């Protein structure tokens, strides 16, 4: 068996810490396979005159049943929160099982060579 190349487009890993919920990937995706839920939180830093509002990511999903592996989201992300991983072993018996939630996407990070 030939090994899968490191740069293979197997799955897309998410770094939830880097994600700012900016929605650029969601809007660029030709397949509409990414969904983001988020909310804003008020942050008051000591010494600051006014509070800042920070977007907090609640939920990031990719539906692999819709994804066509074009990688536009990976290219478009301005915050380096999305990475290709060569992992590909995530077949599912039902279509709903192809929707990966935030943690599942973050779990792929360790296998992403570009990270």
């Amino acid at each position, binding site marked *: 068996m030939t090994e899968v190349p490191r740069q293979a487009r197997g799955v897309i890993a998410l770094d939830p810490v880097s994600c700012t*919920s900016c929605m650029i990937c*969601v809007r660029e*995706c030709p397949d*509409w396979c990414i969904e983001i*839920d*988020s909310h804003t939180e008020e942050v008051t830093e000591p010494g600051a005159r006014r509070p800042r509002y920070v*977007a907090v990511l609640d939920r990031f999903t990719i539906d692999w049943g819709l994804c066509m592996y074009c990688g536009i989201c990976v290219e478009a992300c301005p915050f380096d929160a999305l990475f290709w991983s060569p992992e590909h072993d995530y077949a599912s018996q039902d279509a709903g099982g192809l929707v990966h939630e935030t943690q599942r996407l973050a779990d792929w990070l360790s296998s992403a060579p570009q990270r």
Partner: protein
Amino acid sequence: MNVDPRDWASSIRAQVAQGFAYLDLLTAVDYPEAQRIEIVLVLLRPGTAEISTVTTSVDRREPRLGSLVDVLPGASWHEREIAEMFGVEFDGHPDPRPLLLAPGLGLHPLRKETVLGARAVTPWPGARSGHEEGASSGRRTRRTSPPPGVPADWLREAES
């Protein structure tokens, strides 16, 4: 390399004989203005991974082409897919059953005139601005035009 549709199977046979024996890709492209459908075949030479791309064009109004299944058995599924998606008939295909689409759908989804109706009725995930309180804040600043694949006047009254 572009070949005449009458020489399609024989040209491919010659390519295979020259070592381009691996079927990498077999698909089609619709050119409505030119009234033709282009069939694209990409062959690989195992070992060196050299690529040979062979194309041919069939009349869009009555698209038919000789099947390659005799030459490349793996072409079977791809030809069935092209038959459904573009309405190209493959003469001599041993098993021309529908492959992916529901029976009686009555349209060829990858032809350019096919309206991507699902696009018009599926909520666009990017319409929400993630962290705005409540998805329907009344501000419809984005998406006044229909998504790609949906004509501008399609079901216009349903939107208002």
